[in-house]
């Protein structure tokens, strides 16, 4: 019985959100308000139990990880924002967070997204592997290699801000933006697929799981 009620509520909330496609209406507004309220509440509860209870309280008082107190103090300092006169103190924990995260990201992005990607673009254009004779790749592979190396280069030219896009440099930038736009097209196609999948999921829920009409 509980499951059936859940299905009915789920189905009517789904239809409420979909009704926005026709036009804004009270059913949609009600669903929207429920969604926003529940999600805000859910996040509050999830973060409270996971961070304050799960990490801090149990960590400090059950396991004796006293260094967690440093984090707790920084967290409390963050709340100083609520008192306008001493609000400036909240910048300290913020600077700690920004500093630590920047350091962490710098290395991650630099090695994974810059170094390794540049390294994988340094490749023989007309052969499949290093040491293979010239023109042993298939035509498809050669085109693909040229497109990757050329596309990466011209894409970088487009995002080079220290030089005006004029002459040959401007031409390369123009090719770069074309490559970027082609990539966007592929990406757009993927997203249409993704959005359709979500719709398919909801429709299957309504016609299959709720109404039981699908064999």
């Amino acid at each position, binding site marked *: 019985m509980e499951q059936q009620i859940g299905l009915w509520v789920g*189905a*009517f909330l789904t*239809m409420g959100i979909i009704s926005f*496609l*026709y036009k804004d*209406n*009270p*059913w949609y507004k009600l669903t929207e308000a429920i969604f926003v309220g529940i999600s805000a509440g859910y996040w509050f509860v*999830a*973060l409270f139990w*996971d*961070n304050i209870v799960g*990490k801090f309280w*149990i960590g400090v008082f059950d*396991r004796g990880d006293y260094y967690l107190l440093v984090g707790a103090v920084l967290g409390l300092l963050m709340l100083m924002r609520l008192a306008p006169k001493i609000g400036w103190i909240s910048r300290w924990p913020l600077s700690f967070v920004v500093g630590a995260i920047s350091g*962490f990201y710098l290395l*991650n*992005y630099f*090695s*994974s*997204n810059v170094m*390794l*990607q540049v*390294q*994988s673009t340094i490749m023989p254009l007309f052969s499949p592997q290093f040491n293979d004779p010239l023109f042993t790749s298939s035509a498809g592979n050669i085109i693909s290699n040229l497109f*990757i190396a050329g596309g990466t280069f011209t894409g970088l030219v487009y995002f080079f801000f220290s030089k005006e896009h004029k002459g040959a440099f401007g031409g390369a930038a123009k090719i770069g933006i074309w490559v970027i736009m082609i*990539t966007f097209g*592929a*990406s757009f196609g*993927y*997203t*249409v*697929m*993704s959005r*359709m*999948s*979500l*719709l*398919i*999921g*909801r*429709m*299957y829920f309504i*016609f*299959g799981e*709720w*109404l*039981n*009409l*699908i*064999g």
Partner: protein
Amino acid sequence: MLKQILVYALILALSLIGYFVITEPIILGPTASMVIIILIALVLLYILVRTIMGSFVGRRTVFTFVAIAVILPFFMTVDQPIKVSPEVQQLYDAVMALRPGSKVLVSFDYDPPSAPELQPMAESFFALCIERDLKIIIMGLWPQGPQQADLAMQTILREEAFAGKSWKYGTDYVNLGFQSGNEFVIQRMGGEIGSMFHNDFYGTPYDSLPLVRNIKNFSNIDFSFNLSAGYPGSVEWVQVAVDRYGLKMGAGNTAVQAPQMYPYLRAGQLTGLLGGLNGAAEFEKVTGRKAKGTRFMVSQSFSHVVVIAFIIIGNAAFFLGEKRRKKPEGETS
């Protein structure tokens, strides 16, 4: 207002009829399915002709057609050929190369809104692991991820094919649950997994779980599979677990995110990739277990055809509109 109430009442009435009156599933035979497809194609052609003649359709017509394209295939008996792409084959080969008893870490970094795309992947992956006797360690960087994992595991264990397997929690698979902290969780796991997961999803201490108590960090994991719908997800796993700690990893991503992962695949940082529902269907094909991914693909393809048709119609409308604007005033019809 009255009109609105009447529409709501109509929807409620249709729902009640659908729920209480129609008790048998609706199945359209191959001929009926073909007739419907031809009818839809003809109507789309008619819309294109009307557009060329200067009468444009509204956005609601597009929504209606997409809805029809998504819903009708559920009732049709149409089979769609699926071709397995190299990145899906690569993931399959990597799993097949693992010896029975190998430990596989599966991170569920998504929540129910992305389940239509990722849940079929999760189920197929679990099915393959159980079939190959691989030990599964589940975790999540999104709060609802481990629940999705639980659902997927229950679905698989209920299937007839696995009825004979005595697949036990604690020794064959564990669910370590959610841990907040995004990529910092991955970083800490590189040093010691137990330091991030003191208890599992059900509150059992890490050290009392036979499967994981000897697992110190990623070097004790033979393969990893990440199901991701955004941040934190596959990108973070590649950057930290793969590039820093040398974990071997495959990924299943929502279609929105998949294009972002291809550079990592090409550079060898990823071992196989399933992109969106298409990836899920291909993985089902390669593993030989037809399920939701394959079933949903028919709706997916139908809706894509409708979208392509409306792209053509929309472009016809756009260019005709341009042409009319360019004509001197007074000449427009």
